[in-house]
C-alpha cells in the first residue's frame, strides 16, 4: 500500500479496530439495529401482504385482474349483453403483459337438489384457461376441477346448503337467449377458499354447458391474467387492440368502492409505519448515544495523544456507520429470511383469522402471506440512517468541544 493510501485509510481502519476492541458494545448496537431492521421488514411485509391478499382474493377469486366486456354488460351483467364475437382473442393474447386470456360466461340461474333450490350466479369457464386467471381451481378442497361438459364445481357452503355431495347430480335452470333451459350436472369438486362469497356462491360449469343453457354462443367477458401491479396500464394499452364496442376494465374499476377503502387503508398504514419507524429510530439513537457517551474518557486519552477533535469526531462517525451497517445487513438477512418463510407458509393465516372473519367479505380468505419487496430494506435503511445521524450529531459536537484533560478525569 502506498503511503497516501495508508494515511487515508488509517482512520477507517482505526474505527474498525475500535469496534472490535469493544466487542460486546458493538454487538449490542448491531443487535439493536438488526432488530429494528427485522421488525421494519416484517411490519411492512405483513401490512402489504394483507392488502395484497385482499386484492388477490378479489382478483383471483371473485372477479379478475382485468376483464374485457361490452360497456353495456358492465352496467347490466346479463347474458343479453354478451360479447358479439371472440375474434379479438389472438390479438389480446399477443399483447405484452397479458399472460393468459380466458373467456367466461356468467349468468343467473336456479340450482336444484332433491331437497331444495337456491338462486345462484353461475360461471361458464374453459377449464384449462381458467386456472391461469383464477385461483378457484387451486382452492378446490374436495374432488377436482372440471374437465368436460356435464360437470360442475360448487362452493362448499353452497353444497352444504343444498345438501349435495361429491358425485351427485344437481340441476341448473336458467332462462336467457334460448328461453328456459335446464341441465343435470355432476358435482366433481367443492371449493373451500375461506372467502365467504366464494364458498357460498361459486358455481363453475363448462363454458359449453353455459352456452347451451343461455343460448349465447360466445361469452359474457374475457378474463385476463396480467403482470401484477400493471393491471390499469395494460387495460388501457389494450383499448386500441379491441373492437369498437368492447372495453377492458382493470381491477380497481371492477371493485368500485372496495378499492377506495384499500387506498385509505394504505395511507393509515403508512402513518402507523412511520410511528413504528420512529420508535425503531429512537432505539437506535439511544443505543449509539449511550455507547458514545461511555467512551468520553477514552476520547480524552486519544485527544491527549494527538488526535484532533475533528478526526476524533470522524472516527466516531465511522465506527457508528460500520456498526449500524453491519446491523442493517444482519437484519436484512434475518428479516428477509423470516419474511420469505411467512410469504410461502401460511403462518399468519390462523393469527389473522380474527381479522379474517371480520374482513371475510373483502376477500382475504384463510391464507395470509407477507409481501416481499426490496423497498423494505430501504425503509429500514432510512430509519436507521436518520437515527444514527441524529445520534452522532450530539456526541460529535461534544467530542469536538472536548478538553482532553477534563475528559480523562471523567468516569
Amino acid at each position, binding site marked *: 500500500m502506498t503511503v497516501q493510501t495508508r494515511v487515508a485509510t488509517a482512520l477507517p481502519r482505526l474505527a474498525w479496530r475500535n469496534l472490535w476492541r469493544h466487542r460486546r458494545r458493538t454487538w449490542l448496537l448491531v443487535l*439493536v439495529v438488526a432488530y429494528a431492521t427485522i421488525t421494519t421488514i416484517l411490519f411492512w411485509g405483513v401490512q402489504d401482504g394483507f392488502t395484497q391478499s385482499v386484492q388477490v382474493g378479489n382478483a383471483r377469486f371473485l372477479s379478475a385482474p382485468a376483464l374485457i366486456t361490452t360497456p353495456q354488460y358492465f352496467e347490466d351483467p346479463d347474458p343479453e349483453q354478451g360479447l358479439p364475437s371472440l375474434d379479438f382473442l389472438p390479438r389480446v393474447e399477443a399483447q405484452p403483459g397479458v399472460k393468459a386470456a380466458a373467456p367466461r360466461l356468467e349468468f343467473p340461474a336456479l340450482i336444484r337438489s332433491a331437497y331444495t333450490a337456491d338462486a345462484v350466479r353461475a360461471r361458464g369457464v374453459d377449464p384449462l384457461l381458467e386456472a391461469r386467471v383464477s385461483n378457484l381451481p387451486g382452492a378446490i378442497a374436495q374432488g377436482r376441477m372440471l374437465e368436460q361438459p356435464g360437470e360442475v364445481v360448487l362452493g362448499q357452503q353452497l353444497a352444504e346448503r343444498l345438501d349435495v355431495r361429491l358425485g351427485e347430480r344437481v340441476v341448473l335452470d336458467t332462462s336467457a337467449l334460448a328461453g328456459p333451459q335446464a341441465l343435470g350436472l355432476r358435482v366433481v369438486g367443492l371449493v373451500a377458499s375461506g372467502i365467504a362469497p366464494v364458498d357460498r356462491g361459486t358455481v363453475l360449469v363448462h363454458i359449453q354447458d353455459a352456452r347451451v343453457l343461455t343460448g349465447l354462443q360466445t361469452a359474457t367477458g374475457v378474463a385476463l391474467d396480467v403482470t401484477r401491479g400493471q393491471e390499469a396500464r395494460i387495460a388501457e394499452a389494450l383499448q386500441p387492440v379491441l373492437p369498437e364496442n368492447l372495453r377492458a376494465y382493470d381491477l380497481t374499476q371492477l371493485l368500485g368502492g372496495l378499492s*377506495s377503502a384499500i387506498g385509505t387503508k394504505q395511507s393509515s398504514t403508512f402513518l402507523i409505519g412511520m410511528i413504528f419507524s420512529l*420508535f425503531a429510530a429512537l432505539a437506535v439513537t439511544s443505543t449509539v*448515544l449511550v455507547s458514545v457517551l461511555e467512551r468520553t474518557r477514552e476520547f480524552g486519552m486519544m485527544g491527549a495523544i494527538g488526535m484532533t477533535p475533528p478526526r476524533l469526531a470522524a472516527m466516531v462517525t465511522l465506527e457508528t456507520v460500520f456498526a449500524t451497517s453491519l446491523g442493517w445487513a444482519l437484519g436484512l438477512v434475518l428479516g428477509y429470511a423470516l419474511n420469505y418463510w411467512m410469504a410461502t407458509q401460511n403462518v399468519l393465516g390462523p393469527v389473522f383469522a380474527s381479522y379474517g372473519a*371480520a374482513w371475510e367479505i373483502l376477500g382475504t380468505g384463510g391464507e395470509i402471506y407477507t409481501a416481499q419487496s426490496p423497498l423494505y430494506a430501504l425503509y429500514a435503511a432510512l430509519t436507521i440512517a436518520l437515527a444514527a445521524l441524529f445520534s452522532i450529531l450530539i456526541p460529535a459536537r461534544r467530542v469536538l468541544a472536548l478538553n482532553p484533560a477534563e475528559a480523562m478525569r471523567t468516569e
Partner: protein
Amino acid sequence: MFNLLSLSWRNLWRHRSRSLMTAGAVGLAVFFTLVYLSFLGAMENGIYNNLTASVGHLQVRVEGYRDKREFRDLLIPDAAGVEAQLAQKTQAARVIALEVPALIAGETRSRGALLLGDQRPPELRQRFIQQHLVEGALPAVGDLEGIALGQALAKALKLRLGDPVYVYAPGTLGRGAAAYRLVGLLRFPDPAVEARSAYLSLAAAQELAAPGSATRIELHFPFTRYAQDAQLGPIQAQLSQQLGPGLRLESWKEASPAIAQIFDLLTPLVLIFAALFFGLAGLLVLNTIYLSLLERTRELGVIVALGAGPAQVTRMVVLESLLLCSSGALVGGGLGLLLIAALSGGFSLEALYGEVGGAFGLPETIYLSLRAWDIPITLGFALATGLLAAWWPARVAASLEPVEAMRFTA
C-alpha cells in the same frame, strides 16, 4: 435491602442522562403499548357495535327456525303484541322485521329475491341508511308504496329511481302481489346478497304477505363496549320467560357463532405487537445495565473484595434494572393513561378510512378503551423486560474476580 435499594438508586442517578434515556425507552414502550391496546379495545368494541347494530343483541324467532322452510312456519303471529310485551320488560330498542321470498319484476325482467320489511327506531334507521343507502331514500315508516332495492338487483331488472316495481309473493297470507315505486338503492358488501335484496316498510310487507306477523324481533341494547355483553345472559333468561310457546330468544352469539370467535382471537395479536415493542425496549435496558456494569467494574471489584457475595451483587444489578424499568413504566404509563382518557370521549376515524369504512363494518367513531387486564399486562411486560435484561449482566457481575476487576480499565 435498604442499603441495596439506595445504592442502586444512587448508581442510576450518577449517570443521569443515560438512565433517563433508558427509562424513557421503557416508558415509551409502555406508552405505546397502552395506546395500542386501547386502540384494539376500541376496534373490538367497534366490531361488536357494528355487528349488534345490524342483527341486534337478542332476537325473537320461531322455535327451530333454521330447519323450517315454509314461509308460514316462520311467522311470529301478533308481532306487535309480542313487541309490546317485551317493551314492558326492557328499555332496549326494538326492531320488527318480516322476510318474504318473492318474485320482483321490472318492465321486462324479473328475479327471485328476499324481501325485507322492517320497522326500526330512528337511531338504528339512521345507521342503516349510513351503511347501506347509496341513492334516494329508504321507504318511510308506514309507506305502502315505496321500495328500495339492492343496486345489483335494480341493475339486473333495468330499473331506475321512480320506476314501478312489481312484487309477487304467492302462497302467503296477504295480498300476494303489489306494485311499488323504486325510491332508494342499497349496497351490501356481499354482491350475492345485494342482487337479492329488497326493502319495504313493515306495514307494506305485512300487507303483502302476512298481516300482523313478523319473522323476527330484534332487541338492541345501549351497550358500547364488548365488556358489557356479559350482561346479556341474565336478561336473555328473564325475557325468554315472557315469550309464548313456539318462540325463542336467541343471542347474537348463538345466531352467528363464527363471528363470535373473533373476539377470542384478538388477544394473541395484541400480545405479539406488545412483545415487539417491549423487545426493543428490553434491548435498550440490557444495553444500559451492561454498560453501567462495565464502567463500574473496578468499583464492583472493590465491593466484592469487601465481602459482598455473588447473590448480593446479582440483587443489586437486578434491582437497578427493575428501578429503571418501573420508573420509566410509571411515567410512560401515566402519560398513556392521560392520552387515552382524553380521547375516550370518542374521535372519528373518517379522516383515515373515509366513509367507505362504514360500509365494510369499520367503526366510524373510535372509543378508546382499556380492558381490565390491559394495564397489569403492560406493567408485567415492563417488569419482565427489566428482569430479563438484567439476567445476563447480573451473571457477569456475579462471576467477577475482585482482583481482576479492580485492575480493570475501560
